[in-house]
């Protein structure tokens, strides 16, 4: 291959820089704001000193640690439920002889088209009826149902890419359909599981409307709701909001990095053909 010219390399570097500023910029600004000393919050210049007081204040006088835990529980449980249900369904849709596969997938897609705001009132009444308002489970259930179609579509795609002959081989080698799913299909669909887990976790972690509507007590709130309620009647504690937002982002970063190692291309390489 010919080495790219100086101009081309410069253009690539410039493009990369613009993309980096576009994506990382807001987060960097947030980080900077969270570290400013209290008096300089609204200034544009570089801070005169770095201070961690905003971080301490974010936890001061409000149950923010509890809120973080709530979010972890809700998003974690949503991810687990979603993967458990969607993987079994996706496997069946991708590999088993079923009537109306397409109809089922289309129906799942159609369901996900409902705007959440249209479902808030009926869901509220339903959750009230079963006494799940203001509980983690009351959020996990709607989150799971809303993330399911996406998870189903992504996982069905991944299962379809696994060659049929692998499933057949497992069956001949003595596996029941479920064993073939567990021992052969699931390990091979790991990149799909990782991708789906990240998407579902982020969706649930960031979800605002349901979390706001279905929880009332401060100690049951999730992160986005809690941060939105940081502002008092007369104060906008920007430093604390920024600090809390940085903290709220960390689990996502860790979670993504953790699962990214699983998303390796070519995992199925060597399964079939030469």
């Amino acid at each position, binding site marked *: 291959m010919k080495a790219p010219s100086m101009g081309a390399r410069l253009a690539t570097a410039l493009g990369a820089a613009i993309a980096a500023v576009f994506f990382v910029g807001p987060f960097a600004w947030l980080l900077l704001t969270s570290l400013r000393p209290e008096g300089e919050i609204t200034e544009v210049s570089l801070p005169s000193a770095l201070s961690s007081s905003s971080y301490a204040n974010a936890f001061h006088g409000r149950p923010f640690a509890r809120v973080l835990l709530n979010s972890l529980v809700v998003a974690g449980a949503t991810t687990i439920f979603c993967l458990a249900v969607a993987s079994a369904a996706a496997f069946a849709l991708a590999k088993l002889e079923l009537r109306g596969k397409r109809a089922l997938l289309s129906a799942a897609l159609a369901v996900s088209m409902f705007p959440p705001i249209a479902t808030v009132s009926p869901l509220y009444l339903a959750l009230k009826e079963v006494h799940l308002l203001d509980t983690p489970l009351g959020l996990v259930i709607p989150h799971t149902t809303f993330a399911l179609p996406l998870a189903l579509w992504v996982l069905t795609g991944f299962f379809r890419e696994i*060659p049929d*002959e*692998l499933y*057949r*081989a*497992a*069956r*001949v*080698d*003595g*596996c*029941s359909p479920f*064993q073939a799913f567990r*021992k*052969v299909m699931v*390990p*091979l669909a790991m990149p799909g599981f990782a991708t789906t887990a990240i998407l579902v976790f982020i969706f649930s972690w960031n979800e605002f409307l349901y979390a706001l509507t279905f929880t009332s007590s401060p100690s049951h709130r999730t992160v986005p709701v809690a941060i939105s309620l940081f502002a008092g009647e007369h104060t906008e504690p920007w430093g604390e909001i920024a600090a809390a937002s940085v903290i709220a982002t960390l689990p996502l970063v860790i979670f993504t990095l953790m699962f990214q190692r699983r998303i390796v291309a*070519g*995992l*199925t*390489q*060597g*399964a*079939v*053909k*030469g």
Partner: protein
Amino acid sequence: MATISIEKLKKSYGRGADVVKGIDLKIEDGEFVTLVGPSGCGKSTLLNVIAGLESPTAGAVRIGDVDVTDRSPGDRDVAMVFQSYALYPHMTVAKNIGFPLENARVERSVIATRVRETAERLEIGHLLERKPRELSGGQRQRVALGRALVRRPKAFLFDEPLSNLDAALRTQMRAELKKLHEELGATFVYVTHDQAEAMTLSDRVVVLNAGVIQQVGPARTIYDDPANVFVAGFFGSPRINLVPPETLGQEPKRPGLLLGVRPENVAVGLDGDGTPEGAVRGEVYLVEPMGAETFVIVTLGAARVTARANAGFEAKTGATVWVRPDMTRSLWFDEKSGARA
């Protein structure tokens, strides 16, 4: 070790799509049977039904004395080798080979010994800790074979196992498969679309077309004594010559007959060397030197006939030659039905 009987087997997908249209077949214990036919003839479907991967629309499958029609694949005690090998990419070679035993809850120590024995036998003992992606095509083929062998099943099913290998390796594996069958004495059912594979490997060949058995018999019989035009045309390379008898200067016993004569039974010579009795003259259309022999395609009126000549035969396109069929080896077919006359 077991016989396999297929009784009045039918398989259709939805309305009107009959893939297998009523097949009766008995495969003897220890026999090597090849199912052969063009793509879409139902041979793979038949194999899948024997394996239990597809359930028949009607009819029954027996392995040994047991009716296995409604049994799941794992309960039939048959092993299968797939066209794509279907190795589990996330498992090592040892795990791949041991997988069927693991599912049968065989003891760990026993699995280890049998995996090692099987691998040694297939000369892949040094590869046990590798993953499939680190293996060559031939090695993958052996692992797939090992996974079948390790179980010591009642019967082995092969779904075009050699079609992904290159020509040299294919010939070698073909010989090894035949040797393996001799050593094991197990029942082998082998699906292929390659007539050469069917001829060389099997005790009996089952020729399928459009979901119907055309002929069953030893390869020699199928070749020398085909039941109809389809079978005659499917076996042999280059193809058998099927021409109106007048083209080769022959008188049919009755009208409406086709003359079939294989290229090796058609002699050819240059016009100058003296035309023998019973020969007809034509023009050279193409000369194909094969190394050990040369095939000459000759235009005779509206038809073309392939003849076999010695390796050294040379002729220019358009040159006049004579051809003479060996009428003691000729086959007559009914033009309409395609059946032997």
